[in-house]
């Protein structure tokens, strides 16, 4: 697992009330609520100095369903910086 993936999972885990996070876990199943998601998005943006084009109203936003989806998205955005 890359450093980016490990750090992303650590940030997600902060919002899961200490549940262990697997890449296949869905955020909804981890008990992550909508306000947790936007806080998490901000933490990820600050951690990696990126902008995540996340819209809570976009029902087509399938990129943010599972922890693995988020890791993939963050890895892409971090890679795009360099």
């Amino acid at each position: 697992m890359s450093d980016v993936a490990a750090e992303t999972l650590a940030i997600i885990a902060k919002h899961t009330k200490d549940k262990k996070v697997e890449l296949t876990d869905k955020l909804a199943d981890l008990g992550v609520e909508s306000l947790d998601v936007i806080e998490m998005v901000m933490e990820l943006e600050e951690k990696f100095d990126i902008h995540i084009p996340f819209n809570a109203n976009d029902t087509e936003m399938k990129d943010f369903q599972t922890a693995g989806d988020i890791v993939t998205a963050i890895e892409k955005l971090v890679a795009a910086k360099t």
Partner: protein
Amino acid sequence: MNAVNRVAITGAGIVSPIGHTTTDYCTALKKGQTGIGPITIPYAEELYQKVAAEVRDFDPAQHFDTRQLAMMDRVSHFAVVAAREAIAQAGIDFANGLSERTATIIGTGVGGQTTHDDQFRRLYKQGMPRTHPLTIPRLMVNAPASQISMDRGLRGPAFAVASACASATHAMGVAFHMVRSGAVACAVTGGTEACISVGTIKAWEAMRVMAPDTPRPFSKDRKGMVIGEGAAVIVLEPLEAAQARGATILAEIVGFGMSADAKDITSPDHNGMVRAIEGALTDAKLGAGDIQYINAHGTGTTANDVAETKAIRQVFREHADKLAVSSTKSMVGHALGASGALEFVAALMAVRDQIVPPTIGYLGPDPACDLDYVPNEARKMPVDVALSNSFAFGGLNAVLAVKRFG
């Protein structure tokens, strides 16, 4: 003080993204014009959000002298200009003691945001050691109410009402009850907001609820709200007094309901909405079947539009399918604390002109939003009573009922 007056609306004033007078605003509503466009404020390049419903081509120097300009934030400019129009239309003379018995009650969600932003940018970004000496009188949330009272010489009860996106509706509702009870003889009331500043839009960006293009309330594929700004002010007086002085009666306010969800700071609860709508009907002594049109809160967010639809279905049952329900936020954006007043004037137009404004940008039905949202084109139809819904962050709900006169 035991009087129970019927309450007439005798004047309305508007500063909006689709018109700087009530006439222009109503004409644009009927045409389904959008006020949403590129954000043009200074430092807009710092924003990811590229669109808002700005009040464009508004030059405060045309309305105020140098002294007044220095004292006022944009949020007060809008309020005072709208109040002047409303009072001029009402043709009311505040002499002979009426001034002391006239209330000025103005809703605003966040106050002088341009002042906040400009002055705090000086401190934190530009490293300057001080703010402008008039920072406080410009940004305080009661400034619009104070400026209207000073500008028009209104010496009765005057205060601001803040309940986020329901501020104006709460303000007008309180004013309505004060005129109905006889606590005051006249009220100048409404809402104002000028919240398109870099800091405020950044804060909305962080909530991830803004549409990148346009709000599409109740529509499939809607992607959230778009911030707006502006002001709307109305003049209320006892119907008998208005008739006695030969005023033109635009419509009557007949009911006001309010409630708190007591649940979540951002997620709406349809049960709270239901209680506010039912409260307005009870206050108006009307049944669900008496309503023809609802100007919805209709922000264009997934959560609001589903909850509001559910609430309307719960209150109106089989009559819900006969209602026209539209969101004028599709045209003027979400002007936060002013939105209730801008939307109330749209409802007032519906009962006065018998034309219901549309929900523009509507792409097609969402299965969870299954009412008649008057998609994309205004509709000529009989409207005897209309409701104007406002459901704020913080779970604060307010609903007004406006009735056709004559």
